[in-house]
């Protein structure tokens, strides 16, 4: 009998810990960011799996740090161009950063499983050029795991990425679609 109750306690503890809700600061070292550029001449995609993000469930603060050299292109030449001082200048600006806040924090219950729509406003710094932006995201709470999905458009010229001529000016869209997926865990 004693054994049974002990087992029950241990079991319930396990069950409880499995369903502990994420509170405080969540960290994601498992974030995927991709961007997609479409023109009638060419479609270009690049992927980055090394992004770090934090999400504070109490304050709504959200931060992304993006190692720019981790974007992988299908074509090596494109990757070279992208990294070069003419475009993203990744040696000088190895990281891009987004600092923002969830503005509708009240409508997201991190203690209850479900899917929530979030509105995030903040500043995006690419190549030393900071621009305010507002993005919509979907936050999914499942047990102690929180995931964030978002899609946004970024105007390259806003961050000093301009193409004056040649192939890049015709083959790269002025506005690229950026897709984000973060998997957060509590620290």
């Amino acid at each position, binding site marked *: 009998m004693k054994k049974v109750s002990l087992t029950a306690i241990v079991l319930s503890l396990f069950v409880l810990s499995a369903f502990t809700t994420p509170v405080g600061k969540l960290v994601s*070292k498992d974030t995927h960011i991709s961007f997609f550029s479409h023109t009638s001449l060419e479609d270009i995609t690049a992927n980055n799996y090394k992004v*770090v993000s934090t999400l504070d469930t109490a304050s709504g603060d959200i931060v992304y*740090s993006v190692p720019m050299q981790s974007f992988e292109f299908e*074509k*090596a030449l494109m990757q070279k161009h*992208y990294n070069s*001082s003419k475009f993203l200048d990744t040696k000088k600006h190895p990281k891009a950063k987004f*600092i923002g806040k969830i503005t509708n924090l009240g409508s997201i219950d991190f203690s209850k499983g479900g899917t929530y729509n979030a509105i995030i406003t903040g500043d995006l710094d690419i190549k030393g050029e900071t621009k305010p932006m507002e993005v919509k995201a979907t936050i999914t709470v499942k047990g102690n795991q929180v995931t964030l999905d978002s899609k946004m458009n970024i105007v390259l010229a806003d961050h000093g990425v301009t193409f004056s001529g040649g192939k890049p000016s015709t083959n790269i869209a002025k506005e690229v679609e950026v897709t984000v997926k973060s998997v957060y865990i509590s620290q």
Partner: protein
Amino acid sequence: MKKKKIKIIVGVLVLLIVGVSGVAYYMFNMPHRNIQETNTDFSISSSEIVNEYLADATIANEKYLEEEGNSKILAVTGKIFSISEDQNNQKVVLLKGPSDKAGVSCTFTAVTNAHTKDLKLGQTITVKGVIRSGAGFDEDLDLYEDIIMEKCDIINQK
């Protein structure tokens, strides 16, 4: 005589066009650098390179990062702190000394993933890969960021 001259000119022109378009074609379809088959630039321990970055990130970036993204190829030796997997199903091995504030996060590839199979936490290994960014304390994240290496494989294990 005139005909011969024209023939030569046409011949040279054709060769030139073929040559130029060949080079352009190669440039456009140039393969990615094969990291594992390229010579290592620096052999270093995870603690040493983290300390270099924490001491002065600007100097370290100057030393390790390259303008067109073909940054230095490193062989980093360190203790395995954690092993995980990213959203691309690539294995991620973090090399980090027990008293270090940051480590070296090594991402493997579809080809090299399997080599991490028998690794154990605390084991000392040497990983070769290309550096993408350095370590440092980020005030906005309020945490230390690890050095990032990708296209990794294990070149030595104890």
